[in-house]
């Protein structure tokens, strides 16, 4: 599969948006400018972005608590994302959701989820809608390695399998569930093997290789769209930062982290595009610069946006 240059350019831009967005969010938090907590996906941008970009218009996604890259990858507006982080009225959830609930059902984003594994069942249901209405669309359901130990993983994959629902379960295996290394939370090498319990395909991809991810998801989506039932994809990657706001990271070594930093998915895509003469280094620099400006604009948009009116606390409980 050779990807069009525009696709790669867009991918690169989104991956940069994702990283810069999160760096900005981290800065806000460190300044106490936003409250709550947040889970950053720095280092995992290929998983979140390239997978979403392999979707078609009208396909749906369900995101995790570590969902910024996924949201940016799906094409959400970084202005409204940033506004949501700042709790503003112009945010995707009018300031009611925050980092863990960024959603935009209209465009097919079923929401980030504060419940680990919370997206599995919802995605099965959204896929049922696609199947029932014969939309030809698929649902891409994100989850972490730790999330696959929730009962909801099992129930949802089994249901999706027997009903042949058009859903791709995309596991971002970053080797840790919070502080718990994967060897301590499951007794198998590849999460993809869990597909065998449901008689569906299970595929492992290099989670830091945007092209492999794109290709795998695109292929899987093709099969899934044909009505062949769900696919489980395991994307092996790594998170560079702590689990959430406060994390001393005693559970991992600096060496391990350093090693993974060498596999930076953003650099990788940059080098690929330059090496393949699709773009010059200068052109790539410009893209990065553009990404920075976009993020600054998002910050400005968010900062300038109004707080939601207090009365809105009572709104939106019922339709």
């Amino acid at each position, binding site marked *: 599969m050779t990807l069009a240059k525009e696709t790669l350019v867009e991918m690169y831009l989104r991956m940069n948006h994702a990283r810069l967005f999160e760096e900005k969010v981290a800065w806000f938090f460190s300044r106490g400018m936003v409250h709550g907590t947040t889970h950053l996906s720095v280092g995992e941008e290929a998983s979140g972005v390239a997978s979403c970009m392999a979707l078609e218009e009208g396909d*749906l996604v*369900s995101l995790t608590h570590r969902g910024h890259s996924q949201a940016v990858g799906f094409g959400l507006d970084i202005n409204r994302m940033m506004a949501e982080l700042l709790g503003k009225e112009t*945010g*995707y*959830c*009018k*300031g*009611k*959701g925050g980092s863990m*609930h960024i*959603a*935009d*059902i*209209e465009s097919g984003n*079923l*929401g980030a*989820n*504060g*419940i680990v594994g*919370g997206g*599995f*069942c*919802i*995605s*099965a*249901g*959204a*896929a*049922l*809608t*696609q199947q*029932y*209405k014969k939309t030809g669309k698929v649902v891409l359901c994100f989850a972490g390695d730790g999330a696959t130990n929730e*009962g*909801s993983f099992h*129930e*949802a994959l*089994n*249901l999706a399998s*027997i*009903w042949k629902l058009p859903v791709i379960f995309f596991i971002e295996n970053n080797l840790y569930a919070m502080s718990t290394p994967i060897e301590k939370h499951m007794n198998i090498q590849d999460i993809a093997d869990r597909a065998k319990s449901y008689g569906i395909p299970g595929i492992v991809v290099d989670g830091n290789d945007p092209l492999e991810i794109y290709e795998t998801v695109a292929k899987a989506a093709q099969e899934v769209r044909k009505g062949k039932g769900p696919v489980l994809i395991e994307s092996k990657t790594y998170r560079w930062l702590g689990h959430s706001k406060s994390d001393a990271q005693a559970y991992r070594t600096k060496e391990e982290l350093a090693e993974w930093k060498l596999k930076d998915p953003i650099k990788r895509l940059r080098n690929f595009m330059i090496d393949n003469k699709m773009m010059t280094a200068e052109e790539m620099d410009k893209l990065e610069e553009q990404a920075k400006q976009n993020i600054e604009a998002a910050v400005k948009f968010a900062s300038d946006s109004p707080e939601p009116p207090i009365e809105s606390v009572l*709104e*939106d*409980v*019922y*339709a």
Partner: protein
Amino acid sequence: MEMKEMTYKDAIKLAMSEEMRKDENIIFIGEDIGLYGGAFGVSVGMFEEFGEERVRDTPISEAVIAGAAAGAAATGLRPICEMMFGDFITIAMDNLVNQAAKMRYMFGGKAKVPMTMRLPFGSGTGAAAQHTQSLEAWLCHVPGLKVVSASTPAEAKGLLKAAIRDDNPVCFIEHKLLYKMKGEVPVDDEYIVPLGVSDVKREGTDVTIVSYGTMLYRVLEAAEAVAKEGISVEVIDPRTLYPMDTATIIESVKKTGRAIVVHEACKTGGLGGEIAAAISESEAFDFLDAPVLRLGGLDTPIPYNRNLEAAAIPTVDKIKDAIYKVMNR
């Protein structure tokens, strides 16, 4: 209004079937609801009429029943789910409470989750502690959910249709002992009993009793009994338990000056406290000649033995005693 006699469970089936005929976005999912027709036979024949695309047997996986319904509802379908027993909602609570009920609010009003979760509650079947609970109070503490309880065949039809048409997650409580109860049911397929409206099931002047489900019938029986002794009982069925139309109840209490709440669920933590407190903190307080009494199930699990089981929930005699108690003040 043209009426037809039918059982409560047939009225439920009729409501589902009529709505499914009108709106093909409605699907019905649950365990053994297809060919088998559901554990209580509620849906017998629906599989044959609507086919396996719309009447879907699920694996024994209550979490995904609720969660898939939420996901389907948020994306354009209007699922009806059957929990085989309401007790199994314990397995579905995350998807119901943390997902379905909160989606709209968390997302700033931009989701719509029109799903109906049918929940057979209640004891009297000898099925012991894990198949006999009345857990409506939990659900009435979850903003975003609506909770409905139908006491007659006609209301079963009308309220369930309203629930299915509602754009929110609605928990629809059915009491197993009512399934075989017969009653006149409007045949009009636009017959709806609106949510959020309490119903005066019996008019009276001396004491107001709020009740629902099977307990309602014990209350009515007790009311008839004490009527012979000159005590006039007004009986109110809230029907929608959350958010509840308390205005009708409060008006009644202002008239009667006395109130009792009767439910089968364990007394402590049950809806009785909520209703009693709502009455007391309303303008009805000044009209109260006696404290609002609550009569609920014992604070125990439901036992298996027939006599013990019967002893665990309010009886007609206990209700009469409660009436005497509030009248004697």
